[in-house]
C-alpha cells in the first residue's frame, strides 16, 4: 500500500481517489499483485476530446479475437486434424454434440465478423488520420495483424475438409505458384507435398491453432502497448503530436461504449449463428470434376480479379499488384506526414482508399453478376448449396474404424494369384489402393483394371509409370519377373 507520505508522482493523478487501505482478501490480492493500480492504469487512459463511438472498433476486434480463441479451444475437444477424420469430427460436432452447431457457427461467422470489424477499424484510422504523429510502428503492427487475421481465415477454411474447403484451399495454394522461382517450393512447403492431402491439413491446423494465434497474441500485445505509448489520437481537428483538447478518461464513458459495441457484436453473432447455422457440406472428393469452388465472400473480389487478369497477366494481377498495394498501404504513415488530420486535406490517401474499396466492392458485384447470369454456373452453385443443405439433414454416420483383421481375404485357388495377393498386401500397393484394391482417398480402385488392360500392358505399366501415375504419387515398382507376373495375375483377378 502506498502511504500518504509520498507526494503525488504526476499531475495527471491529482484526484487522490485511490483507496487508502483495503482490508481482507482484496487487500491481500492487491498487496501481492498490484492489480488495482494496473487496472487504474488501464482505465484512466486519457482520450483527447473525450469518448466517441468511432473508437469502439479496436476493442470490438479484441473481443472477437477472444471469442475465437475460446470457441476454437472448445471445438478442438472433438476435432481431429487428419484427412480421414476431420470431416467426420466436424459433422459430429455439428450434428451430435450439444450446442456444437451453435459454437461452430459462432466460430465460423466470427471470422466474417472480424473481417468486417477490421474494415471498420482501418477505415476509421484512415479517415481520422490516426496513424499520424509518431505512430508508424503502431500502424505497421496493425498491418501485420491484418495479414495474420487473413491468414487465420485462409487456414481455418480448410479444416472442415468438405468440398468447399478442399477446392477453395487447392485454388488458394495454387495461386502461390505464380511467384517465380520460390513460388512452387513455398506451395509444397505449405501443402506438405505436391498435392493436397492429409499433410496439408496438419500444416494448416498447426498454422491455425499454434503459429498464427501465437503471433497474433504477440502483435496484439505490441499493438496495444504502442497505442498506449503513443496515446489516443482524438478527433480529426486534434494535433497528432501535441494534443490540445481537454481529455476525458477511458473509464467510464468509453468503456461503456466499447462494452455496448461488444454486446451488439455478441448478440448479432449469436442470432445469426442460432437462426442461420453455418453449413457443413459433403466430404471433400478430389475426383469431383463438377464442383465449382468459390472462396468466402471477402476473398471473392480477389478471385474475380484473377479471372479477369488470367494468362500472362496472372503474375502481375495475382502477385505483383497485390504486393505493391500491400506495400503502399503499409507505407501510408511514412509518406503522409503532415500534421493536418482532416480527411479533406489528405485527398490522396483518403481518395486512394475510397477508390480501392469501390473497386473491391465492384469486383465482388461483378463476380456475383457473372455467376448468376451464367445458367450453367448458377445451376451448379445452386446444386452445391442444395447438396450442403441435404447433407446437414442426413443423420450422423459414425466412422467405421475397422481394426478387424478378423475378415481374412478369400484365399485364391490359383497359387500365382495368392502370391500376388501377398505381394499386394505386404508392399506399398495396399497402402494407397486399399487392402483389396478397392481404392482410397489417395489412389483409385484397381478393381476391373484387369478387364481394361492386358497382362503385358499391366506389367509394362508397373515398371514404366505414365505421367498421370507419377503425378498421382505412384512410387516405382521394384519387383523381379516372377513377382511381377504374380502381382499382375492378382490385379487381373480383381473383379466386381
Amino acid at each position, binding site marked *: 500500500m502506498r502511504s500518504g507520505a509520498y507526494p503525488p508522482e504526476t499531475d495527471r493523478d491529482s*484526484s*487522490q*481517489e485511490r483507496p487508502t487501505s483495503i482490508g481482507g482478501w482484496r487487500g491481500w490480492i492487491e498487496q501481492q499483485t498490484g492489480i488495482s493500480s494496473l487496472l487504474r492504469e488501464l482505465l484512466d487512459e486519457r482520450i483527447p476530446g473525450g469518448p466517441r463511438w468511432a473508437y469502439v472498433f479496436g476493442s470490438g476486434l479484441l473481443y472477437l479475437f477472444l471469442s475465437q480463441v*475460446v*470457441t476454437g479451444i*472448445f471445438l478442438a*475437444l*472433438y476435432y481431429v486434424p487428419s484427412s480421414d*477424420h476431420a470431416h*467426420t*469430427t466436424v*459433422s*459430429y460436432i455439428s450434428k*451430435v*454434440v*450439444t*450446442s*456444437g452447431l*451453435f*459454437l461452430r457457427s459462432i466460430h465460423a461467422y466470427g471470422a466474417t465478423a472480424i473481417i468486417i470489424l477490421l474494415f471498420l477499424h482501418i477505415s476509421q484510422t484512415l479517415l481520422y488520420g490516426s496513424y499520424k504523429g509518431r505512430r508508424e510502428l503502431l500502424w505497421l503492427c496493425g498491418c501485420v495483424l491484418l495479414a495474420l487475421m487473413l491468414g487465420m481465415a485462409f487456414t481455418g477454411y480448410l479444416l472442415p475438409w468438405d468440398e468447399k474447403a478442399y477446392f477453395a484451399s487447392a485454388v488458394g495454394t495454387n495461386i502461390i505458384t505464380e511467384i517465380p522461382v520460390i513460388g512452387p517450393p513455398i506451395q509444397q512447403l505449405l501443402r506438405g507435398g505436391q498435392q493436397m492431402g492429409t499433410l496439408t491439413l496438419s500444416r494448416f491446423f498447426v498454422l491455425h491453432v499454434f503459429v498464427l494465434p501465437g503471433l497474433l497474441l504477440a502483435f496484439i500485445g505490441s499493438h496495444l502497448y504502442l497505442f498506449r505509448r503513443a496515446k489516443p489520437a482524438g478527433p480529426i481537428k486534434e494535433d497528432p503530436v501535441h494534443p490540445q483538447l481537454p481529455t476525458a478518461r477511458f*473509464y*467510464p464513458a468509453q*468503456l*461503456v461504449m466499447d*462494452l455496448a459495441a461488444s*454486446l451488439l457484436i*455478441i448478440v448479432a453473432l449469436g442470432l445469426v449463428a442460432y437462426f442461420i447455422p453455418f453449413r457443413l457440406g459433403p466430404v471433400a472428393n478430389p475426383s469431383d470434376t463438377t464442383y465449382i469452388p468459390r472462396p468466402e465472400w471477402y476473398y471473392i473480389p480477389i478471385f474475380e480479379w484473377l479471372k479477369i487478369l488470367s494468362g500472362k497477366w496472372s503474375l502481375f494481377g495475382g502477385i505483383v499488384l497485390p504486393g505493391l498495394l500491400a506495400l503502399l498501404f503499409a507505407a501510408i504513415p511514412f509518406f503522409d506526414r503532415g500534421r493536418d488530420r482532416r480527411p479533406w486535406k489528405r485527398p490522396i490517401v483518403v481518395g486512394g482508399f475510397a477508390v480501392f474499396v469501390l473497386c473491391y466492392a465492384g469486383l465482388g458485384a461483378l463476380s456475383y453478376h457473372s455467376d448468376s447470369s451464367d445458367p450453367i454456373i448458377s445451376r451448379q452453385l445452386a446444386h452445391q448449396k442444395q447438396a450442403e443443405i441435404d447433407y446437414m439433414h442426413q443423420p*450422423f454416420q*459414425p*466412422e*467405421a*474404424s*475397422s*481394426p*478387424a483383421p*478378423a475378415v481374412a481375404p478369400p484365399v485364391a485357388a490359383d497359387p500365382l494369384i495368392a502370391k500376388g495377393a501377398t505381394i499386394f498386401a505386404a508392399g506399398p500397393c495396399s497402402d494407397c489402393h486399399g487392402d483389396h484394391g478397392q481404392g482410397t482417398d489417395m489412389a483409385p480402385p484397381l478393381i476391373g483394371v484387369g478387364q481394361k488392360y492386358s497382362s503385358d500392358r499391366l506389367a509394362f505399366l508397373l515398371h514404366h509409370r505414365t505421367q498421370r501415375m507419377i503425378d498421382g504419387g505412384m512410387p516405382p515398382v521394384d519387383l523381379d519377373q516372377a513377382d511381377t507376373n504374380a502381382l499382375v495375375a492378382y490385379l487381373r483377378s480383381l473383379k466386381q
Partner: protein
Amino acid sequence: MSTHRQDRRSFLGFALTTVGGLISAALAVPLVRFAAFPLRRQAEEVSWSDVGKVEEFRSLNAPAARAIDVKRIDGWRSTVAKSSVYVLPAASGKPKVLSSVCPHLGCSLRWIEKQDHFVCPCHGGTFTADGVHVSGPPLRAMDELESKVEDGVLKVRFQLFRQLVAKKEPVG
C-alpha cells in the same frame, strides 16, 4: 473530485460488472453444454458378441479365456474392440460367462490352473472357479455377463460394471 462523481463511478462500475457477469454466464452455457456432452449421452444398447460354438465348451473342466469382438460407438467412430471373457464349464445347458475385469480396480483377472483360483495380478484378490470372492480387496464376486445360445453359438453381452462397490451396477 466530488462525492457525487465518485458515487456515479462506483455505480457504473457495479452496473458494468453485473451486466458483464450476466453476459459471460449466458455465453458460458453453450460452452459448458458442449464440453460436458459426453457425460449427458444416453448409454447405448449393448450389442451381442459371439464367444464360440457352444459345443466347444462342453468338454471344459476349467474356466477358459476367450477373446471376443465388442462393437461400440466410441465418440464419432464405431469400433470393434477385443475384450476377454471366461467361459465356465457346463456339461449341459447354457455355460456361464464371466467378465475378466476385476471388480476391485479393473485389472485383468487370470485363471491360475495350479491354485484352482482366479487371481488379480494387481492387488491380489482371489476368486473360486465359479467367480465367488475368496480373499483380497474386491467387494463382490466376479461379474457374470448376460449370455445366450443361438443356433449353437454362445453369445454374450459385454458390459463394464462399477468398480469398488459391493453391488453389481452397469456403467456406460
